[in-house]
């Protein structure tokens, strides 16, 4: 579902954020992306969402060779990748409902279908009672859940999250991870960047570890020990 092949990303200032990166994430897989701050986690996720383009190598997502995706095609590819941002990136002057509905409005769905799907997504993240609120009236954890609902509302095959629990306390972080696992159970491919090693190791998923732009470790999933 996600395939990186000898990917290099060099920024205009000459800094090489990713070097010779290769890995493959199969459909329905869930993996964490870890590494020190500045290791290149965000850059990697941004390549998947076509926010950046790689300088060398090949990135393919949901069957699209991203090198061959033209500017005009970008929106259609992005609709297949639900992106969850650390800073939520919600529309501050729109309600929770409108925020979550945005991908569906863009995709051209009808009113009734939009209402149905938005409520289903809000129900999944436990915010059904807050659909008329504006994001500023919500806590950080709730805002993050709105972002998650927006990322999954049009049922994309791939969801990537950039430090989704970065600003949350352990309790909320755990809730959000549980949520991701539930998405994974219905077949969504997930790649989650996080430097919260404790949180990651407890879950026993596959872990890709970056160090200064190189993939230094690829730990396969562990059998979970749930006591």
């Amino acid at each position: 579902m996600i395939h990186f092949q000898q990917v290099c990303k060099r920024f205009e200032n000459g800094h090489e954020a990713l070097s010779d990166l290769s890995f493959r994430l199969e459909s329905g897989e869930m993996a964490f992306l870890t590494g020190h701050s500045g290791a290149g986690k965000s850059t990697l996720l941004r390549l998947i969402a076509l926010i950046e383009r790689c300088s060398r190598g090949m990135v393919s997502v949901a069957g699209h060779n991203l090198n061959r995706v033209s500017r005009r095609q970008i929106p259609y590819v992005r609709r297949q990748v639900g992106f969850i941002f650390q800073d939520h990136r919600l529309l501050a002057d729109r309600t929770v409902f409108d925020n979550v509905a945005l991908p569906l409005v863009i995709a051209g769905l009808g009113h009734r279908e939009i209402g149905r799907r938005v409520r289903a997504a809000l129900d999944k993240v436990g915010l059904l009672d807050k659909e008329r609120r504006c994001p500023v009236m919500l806590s950080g954890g709730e805002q993050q859940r709105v972002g998650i609902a927006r990322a999954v509302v049009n049922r994309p095959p791939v969801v990537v999250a950039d430090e989704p629990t970065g600003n949350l306390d352990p309790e909320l972080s755990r809730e959000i991870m549980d949520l991701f696992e539930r998405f994974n159970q219905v077949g969504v491919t997930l790649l989650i960047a996080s430097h919260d090693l404790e949180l990651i190791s407890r879950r026993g998923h596959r872990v890709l570890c970056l160090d200064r732009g190189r993939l230094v470790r690829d730990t396969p999933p562990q059998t979970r020990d749930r006591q």
Partner: protein
Amino acid sequence: MTRRVGRANAHTAKQAGMPRIGPLAALHIWLQRHAQVSLESLGRIFSKPVSSLLTISVLGIALALPAGLYLFLVNAQSISEGLDGEARISLFIKENIEETKAHSLAETLNQRNDIAQATLITREQALAEFQQYSGYAEALEALGDNPLPHVIVIRPDASAMQPDAIETLLRSLRADPQVELAQLDLQWVQRLHGMILIARRGALVISALLGLAVLLTVGNTIRLEVQNRREEIIIAKLVGATDGFIRRPFLYSGLWYGLLGSVVSLLLLWLAIGLLAGPVSDLSRLYQSEFTLLRLSLHDTAILLATGAFLGWTGAWVAVAQQLRGMEPR
């Protein structure tokens, strides 16, 4: 792995679980969406009434000026066309020609088919008329002898109204040895024609400039709006919005601005016509003319509204296209 937009699209629909819908349902959703976006754009204009009203007034004035100029020219043209039929040739007969001879000359001229009517005004009649109207009665009496010649006033036939034909007619009239002078009283009509022609050119230039002003005004308003909504635009792009989707609300804003601007211009024009109608009808009564001020027809009104809407839409398009180029998600 080469995929084109169409396939990527279809792929999205399948993978992302988008429902398959018929063309009629799709059209319904499309219309629903456009109605919603256009109303949202209108709501945005009304949500900041002061600045919107200022913008719309500027647009109204910029549109009213060329439209008013157009009306003025249409009116002037209708006057000058009314005057075309008024072309007269005055034939001054030589002093030594007697009245009977002048009479028979008028008779002969009346036979010509490039002349509709030739009327003799004898020197006595002319003097009487002159005394009656000019207030020079005493001066003329002091002169003793009647200094006026016989005059034949000729109304050319409609077929001879073209400048060439009139020229030919004049030449043949001047060739007559009994004629002292043949004078065409058309010059001022021609001058009026000429002035209208120049005015039309000028109006065209002014209209183009004011149209550009409308374009720039709307463009600037929309440019600011795009900048204010920069974050929103980038977020929409991140979740898969096409440029077309992002452009749409701004194009509707431009359309509304243009449309509201032309409504204001219509109000201004009606006001101006209302103020002018009274004095104009007084004036035309004074000249015993049946001239009435032409108003904007339904057709003109529709054109004005459409022009405003089109200019607003175009101005918005240019502004958005130029602004969106620099707005990629970071």
